[in-house]
Structures are given as structure tokens and as C-alpha cells.
């Protein structure tokens, strides 16, 4: 972290490898358009504000997802993310230079599972995405979504119970 604050590119490569996957995955699961670009926005915003951060690795991970969560909310409300001119120019250059992008595997989310996920409330989906894809703890998730820990536990419990009821094994028949 100290090297990252000094502007060491190697330190930032380590951070990017560690965080880019979960952040991009979270943004994709939550339906953000162009999740890779959104994840790069998150990454650059962290770089711009790294001087203000002081804390543990867990706190840093929480901060990353706080910014990612805010970016997701911006996307849902069709708000333009804040991005510096430098980041804009760099992104354009990267997209121009890297002509062939490897297709991102979208995973095996069957229609059945997708429908089950869509029946959940927004808050329940946020919590499950942060916990399963982002790899956050209950405490970290509570901080990201601005809820207390008890509420987060309740949300995830109800979400799983609903999924269990909606799948064929638990269908209620008359």
C-alpha cells in the first residue's frame, strides 16, 4: 500500500490483479452495462484518492466495493461517472491498442436460476452479490450498503429462503 501511494506501477498491478476480478464480477451480476469499463473507473478513482486512505487490507477491500457500489447505483440511474481527462484519454488509447479483446466468459447462469435471482429484491440481490461474488464479510457488506449488520443477515437469510421456495424442489402445489 505504501508503494501504491508513492505511485509505483508494480504495486498497482498487484492491487488490480487482486481486485479487478471481483469488482467486475459484482458489476456484471448487478447488471451494469460494460462492467469492465465501470471497473476501470472504480480503479482510477481509488488511485486518485489513495492518499486519503489509511487502514488494513480488509478496509481497503471495503473501500473498493463502496466505490463499486456507488458506480453501480450511478449506472442504474443513468448518471455519468466522474472520470478525469487523463483517465478518459488512457481508456481510449487502451481500447484502440488492444484491438482483440478476449471474450469474457459469462458463466453458466441458467434461465431457471436467473429467474430465481430476479425475484429477489434489489437489496437482497446487492447483499448476495457482494457476499458471493465480491467475497465480502457480513460486516464489510453492511458498510458498503449502509445497513447495520443485523439487517444484512436478515436480508441474506430471507433471500436464500425465497430461492429455496421458488425452485422446483420446493414448489407449492395445490
Amino acid at each position: 500500500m505504501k508503494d501504491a501511494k508513492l505511485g509505483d506501477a508494480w504495486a498497482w498491478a498487484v492491487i488490480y490483479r487482486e481486485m479487478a476480478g471481483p469488482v467486475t464480477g459484482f458489476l456484471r451480476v448487478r447488471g451494469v452495462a460494460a462492467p469492465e469499463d465501470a471497473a476501470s473507473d472504480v480503479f482510477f478513482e481509488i488511485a486518485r484518492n489513495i492518499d486519503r486512505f489509511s487502514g488494513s487490507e480488509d478496509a481497503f477491500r471495503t473501500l473498493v466495493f463502496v466505490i463499486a457500489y456507488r458506480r453501480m447505483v450511478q449506472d442504474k440511474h443513468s448518471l455519468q461517472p466522474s472520470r478525469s481527462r487523463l483517465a478518459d484519454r488512457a481508456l481510449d488509447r487502451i481500447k484502440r491498442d488492444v484491438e482483440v479483446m478476449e471474450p469474457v466468459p459469462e458463466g453458466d447462469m441458467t434461465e431457471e436460476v436467473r429467474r430465481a435471482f430476479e425475484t429477489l429484491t434489489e437489496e437482497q440481490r446487492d447483499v448476495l452479490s457482494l457476499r458471493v461474488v465480491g467475497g465480502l464479510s457480513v460486516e464489510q457488506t453492511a458498510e458498503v450498503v449502509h445497513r447495520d449488520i443485523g439487517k444484512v443477515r436478515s436480508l441474506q437469510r430471507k433471500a436464500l429462503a425465497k430461492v429455496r421456495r421458488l425452485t422446483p424442489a420446493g414448489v407449492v402445489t395445490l
Partner: protein
Amino acid sequence: MRTSIVTTGDLRDGLADRDVERLLAGESPVSQDHAPIVSLVSALVTFGDTTLQETLVDEYSKLAAQLVRESRPAPITETTRTGTRHYLFGLKRRAVAGLTALVMISGMTGVAWASDGAVPGDWNYGIDRALESFGIGNGGAEERLQELAQILDGQPSDKTRRHAPPSESIGDPDAGPADAAESVTRQGSDSSLAVRSGVSEILRHLFNGEEIDDAAIAEMARTLAGQHGPPEDPPANQQASAPHPGRPSDPGKP
């Protein structure tokens, strides 16, 4: 018609927190009922899995490092001299402002303190009364009496001294009534000379140092009134423009 409800799973929503944590971590289901949950969690993990391109990792890392360097404030050591000069200049400016404020406050406090003991006629008596109207040094009636006592004790104010006649012109204090009698005779017009002569004579009888003869004084007053009759009431406009008691009367007016 009888309706029967057949379920294949546990309808209870309650899941222990321990079971929830195990399911979210993708561990094996506790029971067959939890299989749908395991399927969802597995699908989310797979759907969110992202393969990073090394080219992007390299580019983004360089860019992030550049952003950090550009966002970082300039080191203090590079601007030590300028910073020191600015600091000293700011210090001097603050000191001057503070000193000015101190002098102003001290001056105002001093004037207020000095004005508190002012008596009528002093240059700062107006300040004293003005401050009292704000409740500062307001001694009320007691202060007014003290001011009066100070004047009567022979501590005339500057203004009193300025308007007083020179000491050598005052003369003998015992000659005051005689001087007053002469003054009454001297001032005024010719038409009122008889009246003023009568008044002068009465004053001389009053202050001649002998025993006062009330009957003689009354006779003199009657004689004076009989010569000139009762005083007529002045017209309304003259009442309104009656001379101020402190001002000398206009010559020619009785």
C-alpha cells in the same frame, strides 16, 4: 371440495446463520432442500468470474500510478523558502492587525473609563451619558447626585472655569447684593428706568445688612405697583417667544 397442500421441502424460512454462511461459501448443502441455493450461489460465482488480460493489467497499473503521482500534493521541501516567506509575511500581517485591534480596544476602554467620572460641563460628559444609555457605568440618580455634590464642593469643571469671570473681577463677596442692585439700574431701556430704580431700592433694603423691615418693603412694592399699574398679560405670540431664562433679555422690553 377438500384442498390438500403437498410440499416436498421445509416451509420454514428460518435458516441458521451458520447454515447461511456455509451455503454462501459454496459448501455442500446441509440437506437436499438447500440444493437450489447451492445452484444459485454456484451460478453467481461462475457468472461473476472474470479473466484478466495481462495487457490491460499493465496499462491500467501504469495509468493508476500516473494518476497517483499527479494527484499527490507537491512536497513541502521544494517550496521551503517561498513557504517560509509566506508564513513570515502572514505572521507579520496578523501581528499588525492584532496590535491595531488592541490599541483601538484599549483607547475605547480608556475613554469610557475616563468619561464615567465626568460632570456636566466636561468635554466627555456626553460620552458618559451615551455609555449610560447602553447600561455601561450607569450610576443612575446616585451618580447624578455625586456630580452635583462635586460641583457644589468647589471642583468646577473645565467648562465652568472657562465661563467664570476672572477672580480679580469678582471683588468683595459681601458687595454682591449692592452690585446686583446697581446692575438692575444700569441695564434696560429708559422707559423701564422707574421700575428698575424701584426694584434696585428694594434690593438695597433687603441686603443692607440690617434687620429687614417687612412693612417698609411692602410699602415700597405697593408704591412701585401703583406708579405703573398691574402688569398686562402679554399677547399669545409674545408668550410663545418669551425669552429663555438663561438668556439676557432684549433691551427695551420690561
